[in-house]
């Protein structure tokens, strides 16, 4: 190579590397703000699989029926399984989106995680009950079988009952429009 060109290329190399790193950083920041990139996120080990086998009791005093893995099979339509607790602040943030899903006719199955039945019922009485079925997991063992590591956490099951999406943290309006609604359209078809 011509020595002058060689020198230019060598000078340009750090610039190129810095530019590349900058672009990468920008992509990371964008991901952080849209929620697509979460450095602390634990990817679900259950994607593409059926939920674990489980049975749970109903939430005492609630009119909604309990559910287990048997009730999640063969529903013929996508369903959202939501782990929540009355003591969980992000669950309050998320709650309006769950109500919107219920209004849109999407079945939402709730699991009250490590919650006292009375507290969970009071939470739902105050903010509305979006759940078609409602189970209580006070020991939090079934949640561990699902790979839950905090509340709120939601799992979208397709028509065949296979887990297609997991969201750790509150479902916000952005999550709805960017992630959940497109997925619901895809798996309803």
């Amino acid at each position, binding site marked *: 190579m011509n020595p002058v060109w060689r020198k230019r290329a060598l000078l340009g190399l750090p610039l190129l590397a810095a530019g590349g790193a900058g672009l990468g950083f920008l992509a990371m920041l964008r991901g952080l703000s849209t929620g697509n990139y979460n450095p602390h996120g*634990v*990817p679900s080990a*259950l994607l593409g699989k059926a939920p674990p086998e489980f049975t749970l009791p109903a939430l005492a005093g609630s009119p909604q029926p309990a559910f287990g893995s048997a009730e999640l099979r063969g529903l013929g339509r996508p369903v959202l399984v939501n782990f929540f607790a009355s003591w969980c602040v992000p669950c309050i943030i998320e709650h309006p989106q769950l109500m919107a899903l219920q209004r849109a006719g999407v079945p939402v199955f709730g699991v009250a995680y490590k919650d006292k039945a009375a507290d969970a019922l009071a939470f739902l009485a105050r903010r509305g009950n979006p759940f078609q079925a409602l189970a209580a997991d006070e020991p939090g063992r079934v949640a*561990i079988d699902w790979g839950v*590591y*905090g509340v709120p956490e939601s799992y979208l099951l397709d028509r065949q009952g296979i887990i297609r999406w997991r969201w750790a943290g509150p479902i916000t309006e952005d999550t709805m429009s960017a992630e959940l609604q497109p997925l619901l359209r895809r798996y309803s078809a």
Partner: protein
Amino acid sequence: MRRLLLLAALLLAGPALALDPAEQLRDPGQEERARAIGRELRCLVCQNQSIEDSDADLARDLRRIVREQVVAGRGDAEVMDFLYARYGDFVLLRPRLSAATVLLWATPVLALGAGLLLVLAMRRRAGVAAGPQPLSPEEQARLARLERAP
């Protein structure tokens, strides 16, 4: 003497674990095994601690599961597999080698390889720049002509 005793007590004190005495297994051998397994498992909540070190509720639940399974006679690998099936690579402080983690494991080797290549390239260049090069046949012919010229 008292000071010496105090110093000895301080020096001999083990690191504090998040473990509650009530959680511990009665059999010291089983407890030791449960701890060894727990030290390999990451707390999913406070992510740079093992479940043995973490105070999070989930870590306590996972410690309990590990102990239950140890008492039930499961092997170390079986206990790890149980949690791996639920939480994936993330739960292992030393992730398994898989398509998703191969880059993680290969990075040291790749970095070493890149460094070696760089050193080799620089040495080759230094070699080129250093000593005088022998003349090519054309250059020798030209030199001979010049020397012959009056």
